[in-house]
Structure formats: C-alpha cells, structure tokens
C-alpha cells in the first residue's frame, strides 16, 4: 500500500483490506497505464496503418496512379463524413480514398462498412487494425462528434460493388439516408467524393446468388479479373486510372443532437447528394479518354 494515501481503518487482518482511498476530483493523479500496443478503442493501430500504407503505396501511385482534385475541401481538423460511390467486386475505392487522405492530408480516417466483416476470421481483425469500423449510427456519432475524426462511408452499401459491369457508373439507391441523419446529429458536413476507375479495376460479369447464400456472404461475384488472371484475379485489380474529385461540403442547417430529424428532409438531402455525385461522375467520364491512362 503506497504511503500518503488516506486509508480508512488500518488494522492487521489475515486478508488484505481494500484501500478505500478518499479521492476528490482535484487530486486525480495520473494512474499507471502499461499499454504495449497502439491499438485504439476502434481497433485501429497506427503502426499497422503505416505498414499497410507502405505496402499499398506502390499500388496507389504506380498501379492506379490516383489523381485527386479538390483535396483542400477536406478540413484539416474536425469531424466530417466523407461519402463516395462504390464499385468493383472487391472495391478498390475504399483503400484508395483512405490511403490518399492519410498520405496527402496526414490525418487518420476510419472506414465504415457492414459489420459482416467483423465476423470473418483474420479479415475482421486486419480490417479493424487498418481503420475499419462497423457502420452503426452510434459508432459514426462517436467518431464524428465526440472524437472529431474523418469517417468514410459508401451509402450504396453492397448494392454498389455487387452490380454488374453493364450498370457501371450508375449509382444505386443511397440506403435510407442514414448517413445524412448521422451528419445532422453530429453537426458535421457531408463531403461527397466522386470516384472514376473503380468499376474497371474489377468488373463484375455476373453473380452466384446460391453460392452466396450457402456461404452466408453478401454476394459472390465472377469477375473479369478471375477470367483473365485465374486465381490471382481474386485479389489483383486491373490497372485502371483512378481519378477522384472532392465536391463542395454539404452542411445541414439544423441543430445537432436532436432525437429526430424530418424524414422527408433527410431523404431529400440524401437524394440531392446522390444526384451531385452522379453528375460529377458523368462529368469526369466525359473528360476521360482512356480507362487505363485517364
């Protein structure tokens, strides 16, 4: 028992007595916290992220040759919810955006995705260590409002990457507009990012719904990569040129922390952001001369 602590009733007894230290808020001394790793409460580890960035950087710079436009619209501090269009069987847009923002802006970003990933051994752990968080409203609120972080979400969900190549660059429905509601509640802007290149990186030819059901996964795609490269095509995307355009932040003129927000307003804003993204994608496609060289 450390000296100097005020212990109530000190007597020798056969068993140790709990030191009922009388504490006040003022003398809150620094208590010992012998952590060994840098894993945060989300499971993200900056060391793992740095390693992942080192491995991914050649893919980002040499393979996809990612090119950003309007990066300055993403704030250097404070919470913001980034939303983007989502495509490609194993979507490359998520790592490209996360890598790009951490590399160019030097601030961490958390990627929100279906909690299904958490239940996959190894993948779930790696996903969490590299900044993946399950897309629950409570999680997004905690990240954006209480911790002032950047979070990335794909409002199309699995409907985006599971669509076939014939539907390329046709944005799916934006869920039920949950991302707008969370941004309103957290009082942060939504920043749309239009991505071009992800569709061609891993085009979905068709899906195997029966197999997906049997495996308990959202979808099982048969990709062009698989046909062209065999087993390697499961993980290796085609070197499509990636272009990303950050659109103007959308701010909602509503007070934060309300219990409820107008559903019609939410749907209207959500549809508005979807239209903006769709327009931006079309605009970028109009300027694109080659899938591979931009």
């Amino acid at each position, binding site marked *: 028992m450390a000296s100097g602590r005020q212990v109530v009733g000190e007597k020798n007894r056969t068993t140790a007595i709990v030191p009922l230290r009388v504490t006040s808020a003022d003398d809150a001394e620094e208590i*010992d916290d012998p952590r060994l790793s840098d894993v945060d409460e989300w499971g993200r580890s900056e060391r793992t992220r740095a390693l992942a960035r080192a491995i991914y950087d050649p893919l980002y710079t040499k393979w996809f040759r990612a090119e950003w436009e309007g990066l300055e619209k993403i704030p250097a501090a404070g919470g913001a919810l980034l939303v983007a269009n989502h495509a490609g069987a194993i979507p490359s847009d998520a790592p490209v955006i996360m890598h790009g923002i951490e590399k160019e802006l030097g601030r961490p970003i958390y990627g929100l995705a279906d909690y299904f990933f958490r239940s996959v051994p190894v993948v779930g752990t790696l996903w969490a260590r590299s900044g993946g968080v399950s897309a*629950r409203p409570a999680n997004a609120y905690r990240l954006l409002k209480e911790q002032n972080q950047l979070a990335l979400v794909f409002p199309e969900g699995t409907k985006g990457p599971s669509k076939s190549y014939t539907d390329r660059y046709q944005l799916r429905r934006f869920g039920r507009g949950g991302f707008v509601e969370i941004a309103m509640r957290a009082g942060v802007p939504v920043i749309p990012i239009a991505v071009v290149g992800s569709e061609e990186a891993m085009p979905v030819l068709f899906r195997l719904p029966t197999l997906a059901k049997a495996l308990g996964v959202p979808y099982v795609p048969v990709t062009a990569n698989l046909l062209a490269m065999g087993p390697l095509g499961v993980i290796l995307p085609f070197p499509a040129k990636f272009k990303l355009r950050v659109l103007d932040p959308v701010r909602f003129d509503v007070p934060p922390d309300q219990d409820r927000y107008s559903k019609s307003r939410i749907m209207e804003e959500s549809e508005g952001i979807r239209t903006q993204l769709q327009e931006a994608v079309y605009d970028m496609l109009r300027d694109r001369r080659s899938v591979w060289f931009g």
Partner: protein
Amino acid sequence: MSYRVLVTGADTFWGGRMIQALENDPSIDVILGIGTHAPSVPFERAEFVRSDQNYSILNRIVKATQVDTILHTFMITNSATVPRRAMHEINVIGTMNLLAAAGAAGSSVRHIVVKSSTLVYGSAASDPNTFQEDTVRTSPVRNSVERALVEAEGLVRDFSEDNPATKVTVLRFANVLGTHLTTPISRNLARPVCPAIFGFDPLLQFLEEDDVVRALVHVTRGGIPGLYNVAGDGRLPWSEVASICGTRLIPVSPFSPLKIRPLGRVFDLPAELEDLLRYGRGVDTRRFASTGFTYTSTSAGAVRKFIRSVRLRRQSGRTPASYTYEHDVEQFFRHSPSIVGTGDV
C-alpha cells in the same frame, strides 16, 4: 447519517470483501451478512446469518432488523462456478425474493445496490463499439449466465418503477482481474498457454478487483441511484493482454463451437467467453465518472497488477491465509457479556 446495511452473498468473495470494507466505516451502525455457506473471511463486527440461496427468510430478517440499505452482491457472473439450474435460482429467484422483501408494506429499505455485469450487453459482430447504459443489446441472449442476469436486471427495473421512493443502483462491472479473485480469464492468463480464437483479437476492458469494492462502497455511502457501467479506462486487444501476462496464445478453430466445447474443458472457456473472445466488448464509463468516482487502475493497469500478484505467488509459494468460520466463537465474541475489548490478537 447512519446506516444499517444488509449484504447478500456474505460467504462469497465479493460479499466478504464488501463486508470487510464496510466494517471500516464508522458511520455504518449495523452490518448483516447473509449467505448459504460459512463466510470465508473473518468479520469484525458484522453478523452472519445462514440462509438458503433464494432467501426465503429474508422477509423476516428485513422486518426484524429494519435495515435501510441492501447490497446485493450475490449475482453469479461466471457460469463455470454453478450448475445452470442453480444460477437461475440464485440470480433470478434470489433477486426476486430480495426485492419482494424490500418492497413489502412498511419496509425500512431505502436503497438497494445490485452488482451486475456488462455481460448483459452480450458480445456480437453487430454490436456498437461502445455500449451506453441505455443501449439495448443487438444479439439474442445465447447463454445461461447472460439470460439470468438480463432477467434479474429486468426485475430490478420493474421494482424501481413500482417503488419510486426506494433508491435503486445497478452497477454493471466489466471483467474483473485482481490479486485475490479467480475467474476463467485469470486462470487462463496465469498459465503458460492461453486460448485465443483463430483470426480474432477482440478489444477488452478490465477492472481491478479493489475498484469493484470501491465502486460499491461509493454508491452505498453516497446514496447514488442509477444504472452505471463500471470499467477501467482503455481497451486492449486480447493479444496485448496475453503479452502483458507473458502467456502464449494458442489459437482454437473459429468455425464450429462444437470444436471449441471439448477445448472449453481443457482451457476453461465457459460459453460466455466464446463470444467475448471473438468480438470483445466496450462500455462507456462516463456516467459513473460523473458521480465523482475515480479508478485506481486502468484496464492495462489491472492486467499488470494481476499478473504481478500471480508472479509473486508463484515465486514465494505464498497462498492467502485461510479462515474457518466457527459459529460459536463468533457469537461469543459478539454477544458474551465477558467481552470487554475488540478481541484482536
């Protein structure tokens, strides 16, 4: 203000420690311990009454002693210690009878403190990162200990709605580690090898055993009502817990619980740990901190304190002194007219 306190589970680890802690508080006049077996630690001035596990005599005790505070520590949070049936009897029927006695007409009880566990939130992939006190669990109840605790808490909630004049406190404690307590987690961590579910490295929160007692004393003395999560600051991955403890993780198959069951016996893995070792659990402790409580250890600090005590025990060969309760001796010291001093040797 003076108190007359009744502590349930006086024969258990937590009940015994609570009574010892309360005995040091001169503002508490009367301490009564009830339990099914003889107490395992000596009490100085607390009276011990033996009862069956669902407290059929509690009504009479409460009436006769006019206690104003009940400290309900006898809640099983570890399914390995008792059979399934007994767990229901203790957690659900025991709590029900206790509340019935406390809520009887003309009852003297003004404050009930219940020791619960963060097990009531469960552990699943669909969980939020952090459970607030009012977050409802996302997964159905999957094992007997969680079911018993959820049911018992439901009874407590009903009681507090029906008896607004009685203060009700429920503390949900995270996994506890400490110098004296033995749990399936502590047994695993004290061994040279320790199970992990392959491909999962969940984030866990721990609480030092002294902080459990301090938290219960804090709400009892302060008369603080409400529902609170109690857990040390910070969360750490299971792999980090293992490396602080210097134990090697042995991965077991993640795919079939059937494959884990036999291993469960080897490794001491009760059902409630299987999900925890997959998905972990995080709770928000800000509400309890706002009542003025401060912890002596963080999560990582609790793990280190625990393993240091294990190392000391291992190397010095010292085990805690044991104590045998002798009814006649205790009665003699408390009630004989010949006693003039405290009887301390």
